């Protein structure tokens, strides 16, 4: 057991800290970052993380484009984003240092594995001179540690380890150092190592030794003059776990299936960054979850349509290019008025675009990317944890309104993780699906509920309700194929009205920080954390005339949207695209003027850029 007392050195209390781990794709940086954030969350901190890895699986060692990183933001205060600039950079090689130095705040700390700063690695990182020697890092506090040698030393009397294993465990050395710096016990990671390598005692011993070696090395090292504490955050009471957005999405559907009493079916084709939802759901056969890894995106959605016709809660998951392929089938689902959730984990587009980067540029595709007039419900999650809520809500809406729902998330919240206050299924709202066992007199598949205009759902196997659905236009009364011009126009209106009526069943939008004022910051989807943080900062600086309205319901918009917008003098719509949500707002509220702040770099918003932009309208 390690003594957590850091003696004889300065201890500074911090509100929040941002740490970034960078190294080669094979250096274990994702694991290191995850361990640090999990440990901090269990300590009681609020956390937000973001992985940043290349699309190459194993890029050449030491190369600039092969750098893999993981950023963790931990705080005793509310933490809504993984943070912009970092307080501590841990760089396992020169390429990691070179590509990430820009993010380190001047005067702050960089820990490097000095063993990796060889002539060869410096050349690969395109350094003319060694940055550890040429004075270029004089504005930072650089801690050089011969991590590779120290790792080797720690393992020297442990027989049976090859060089590869020894080299690969140096990330544990770095993690041990960081644990010491922030007063974190390595216990959680030791437990993790024991579980992960339960069949390999040698690896348990090796990883534990290196982790402890890093920890004790820091304790005795005068090079690290300070350690820091970040007190637990004041979070609402409850049981928590750290969850990734994609996992939360998958779990939201599990909860919805249980709540509705339906079996869950997922038809999907692997695509970055959505595949983790498939990976998660396929594990849960014990709940009766059915998954089909289909032959293509189209079979992913059409198999889900078939499963929905047969009575399952059916979903399909994809990312931008996959949504394009699913367009025709989505139109069919809308036409046959069956429940279906389509998850689009947005990434940088167009075409193959930036597959591992984030963007919000599929919004108009989700709204309009089908032939004919084919409105569907569009909603968006805004944090890793609330991916759970919106997946659940997408299932509820599709089952109660008998129309497809597109759930938009993005690479940023899907891969990011944050604490999630676990929601027991018993606490979740009821889901009343529309399956019928008997039709009653003159039953027709296209007869509608008065409030929602949803039709009933008679599934194969139900005697007496045999019927046919299909992509051809249907007679409003009988459900038979109809080419009657007036009927087609009527049905087109009905399908639009059906989506509009969803407004009666969704919450109002509530502005944060100010109910009225000079500037309303408007966002939607995965930018919540960044926008919220920026507006909060301005609010704390004394600007009481700035409000923030964030949208999770896009189609239809919350019923009070226009009324909220009119309470502010200036409206600025901030999006990671060229202005797609602002187009939707302009169509709906043509009398209002919408300013835009857009970024299309495959990157999330940074705090400073937003604060500067908003200040411009406040002074």
């Amino acid at each position: 057991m390690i003594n957590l007392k850091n003696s004889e050195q300065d201890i500074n209390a911090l509100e929040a800290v941002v740490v970034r781990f960078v190294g080669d794709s094979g250096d274990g940086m994702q694991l290191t970052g995850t361990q640090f954030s999990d440990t901090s969350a269990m300590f009681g901190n609020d956390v937000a993380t973001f992985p940043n890895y290349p699309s190459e699986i194993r890029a050449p060692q030491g190369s600039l484009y092969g750098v893999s990183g993981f950023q963790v933001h931990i705080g005793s205060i509310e933490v809504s984003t993984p943070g912009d600039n970092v307080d501590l950079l841990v760089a396992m090689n020169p390429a990691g240092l070179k590509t990430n130095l820009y993010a380190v705040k001047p005067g702050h700390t960089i820990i490097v594995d000095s063993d990796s700063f060889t002539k060869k690695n410096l050349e690969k990182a395109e350094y003319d001179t060694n940055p550890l020697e040429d004075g270029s890092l004089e504005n930072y506090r650089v801690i050089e540690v011969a991590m590779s040698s120290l790792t080797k030393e720690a393992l020297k009397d442990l027989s049976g380890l090859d060089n590869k294993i020894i080299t690969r465990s140096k990330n544990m050395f770095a993690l041990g150092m960081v644990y010491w710096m922030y007063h974190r016990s390595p216990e959680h990671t030791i437990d993790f190592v024991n579980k992960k390598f339960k069949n390999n005692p040698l690896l348990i011993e090796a990883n534990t030794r290196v982790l402890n070696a890093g920890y004790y090395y820091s304790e005795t090292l005068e090079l690290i003059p300070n350690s820091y504490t970040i007190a637990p955050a004041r979070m609402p009471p409850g049981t928590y776990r750290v969850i990734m957005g994609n996992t939360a999405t998958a779990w939201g559907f599990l909860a919805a299936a249980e709540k509705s009493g339906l079996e869950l079916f997922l038809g999907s084709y692997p695509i970055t960054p959505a595949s983790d939802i498939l990976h998660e759901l396929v594990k849960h056969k014990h709940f009766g979850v059915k998954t089909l890894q289909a032959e293509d995106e189209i079979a992913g959605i059409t198999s889900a349509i078939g499963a929905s016709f047969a009575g399952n809660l059916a979903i399909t998951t994809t990312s931008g290019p996959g949504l394009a392929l699913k367009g025709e089938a989505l139109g069919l689902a809308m036409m046959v008025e069956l429940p279906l959730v389509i998850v689009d984990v947005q990434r940088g587009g167009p075409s193959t675009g930036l597959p591992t980067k984030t963007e919000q540029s599929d919004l108009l595709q989700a709204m309009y990317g089908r032939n004919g007039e084919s409105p569907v419900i569009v909603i968006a999650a805004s944090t890793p944890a609330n991916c759970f809520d919106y997946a659940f809500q997408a299932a509820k809406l599709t089952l109660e309104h008998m129309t497809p729902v597109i759930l938009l998330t993005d690479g940023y919240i899907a891969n990011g993780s944050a604490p999630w206050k676990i929601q027991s299924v018993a606490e979740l709202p009821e889901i009343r699906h529309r399956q019928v066992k008997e039709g009653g007199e003159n039953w027709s598949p296209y007869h509608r509920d008065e409030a929602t205009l949803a039709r009933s759902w008679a599934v194969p196997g139900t005697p007496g309700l045999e019927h046919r659905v299909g992509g051809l236009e249907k007679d409003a009364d009988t459900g038979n194929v109809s080419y009657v011009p007036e009927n087609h126009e009527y049905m087109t209106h009905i399908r639009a009205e059906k989506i509009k009526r969803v407004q009666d069943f969704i919450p109002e939008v509530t502005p944060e920080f100010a109910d009225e004022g000079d500037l309303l910051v408007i966002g939607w989807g995965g930018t919540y954390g960044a926008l919220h943080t920026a507006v909060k900062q301005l609010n704390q600086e004394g600007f009481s005339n700035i409000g923030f309205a964030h949208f999770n319901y896009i189609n239809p918009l919350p019923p009070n949207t226009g009324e909220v917008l009119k309470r502010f003098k200036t409206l600025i719509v901030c999006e990671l695209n060229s202005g797609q949500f602002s187009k939707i707002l302009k169509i709906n509220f043509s009398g209002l003027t919408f300013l835009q702040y857009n970024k299309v770099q495959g990157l999330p918003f940074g705090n400073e850029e937003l604060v500067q932009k908003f200040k411009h309208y406040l002074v």
Partner: protein
Amino acid sequence: METTVKKYTFRDFASDQEVRWCPGCDDYVILRSMQKALPEMGVNKEDVVFISGIGCSSRFPYYMDTYGMHGIHGRAPAIATGVKLANPGLSVWVITGDGDSMAIGGNHFIHVLRRNIDLNIILFNNKIYGLTKGQFSPTSSVGQKTKSSPYGNTQPPFLAGELAIGSQARFFARIAGNMPGEMTDTLIAAEKFNGTSLIEVLQNCVIFNDGCFTEFTDKTVREDRQLHVVHGEPMIFGKNRDKGLVLNGLKLEVVTIGEQGITEADILVHDACEQDPTLHQMLVRLSFPLVTGIIRSYADITLEEREDALTAKVKANSDFVKTDDLFFSGETYTVE
């Protein structure tokens, strides 16, 4: 549990919709054969589902008084896969054409056969695009003149059976569109087969490709030019039942019984259940005689059987019963 199956006549399966195929189309024969076959299958009407793609054939579900979905072009096998996985107790039928299944839907066609899920697929092959009014299809002959190949088609055709068996089809039958009795029997056999069954119907299009199979299917020639294979019986054909197939090296050869010392004992006996598809593939490829009947019927484990077994195993080894068990498992922490 044994459930009682209701008694039906063919009329129970006819919907109230007016059938709108061209007069004289073989599609009527298929529809009527299906309506006659269903009462013989031992399934309840509410458990029968027809899923189609797009094309003339794909209007079929509208004419059946069962559950049905008229889907989108080429995707019926994928829709049907979802239906069957969601409720394995259903009798699920895919209705498709040569364009629907082998052009736009080629990918789903090969993968549904590979997976061997218990579906029945009826492929209406008329070697032409009917609903789009007369363009060549993936089964049209080289040189065939159509609206989109006025000087003759330059694209070599697929043989449906060859593609299917190459995609690991376990059940493949080929039936002429003008033989309702055989068709009814084959549909019943397909339903009884546990796994994906593919029935290719050689279906005449009276408008855009009239007579496309006449050289084999016309009443006056069919006995001499079609070999209708039956499992366990020798491959004999001809009006006088005197022609048969033998294997000569790696090729099938037509011989006459009674000539050159050939007796019935020399003729190949059809084994539809053989796992090795080599001979089935040779029968499919034979240009004369045209082989019809159930060419391949190899019993194999289905996708849903594999899935069921796996699910049972995972369930047996899991402590999770409710989602809460998962949500509160592993690394959680409490904030007071």
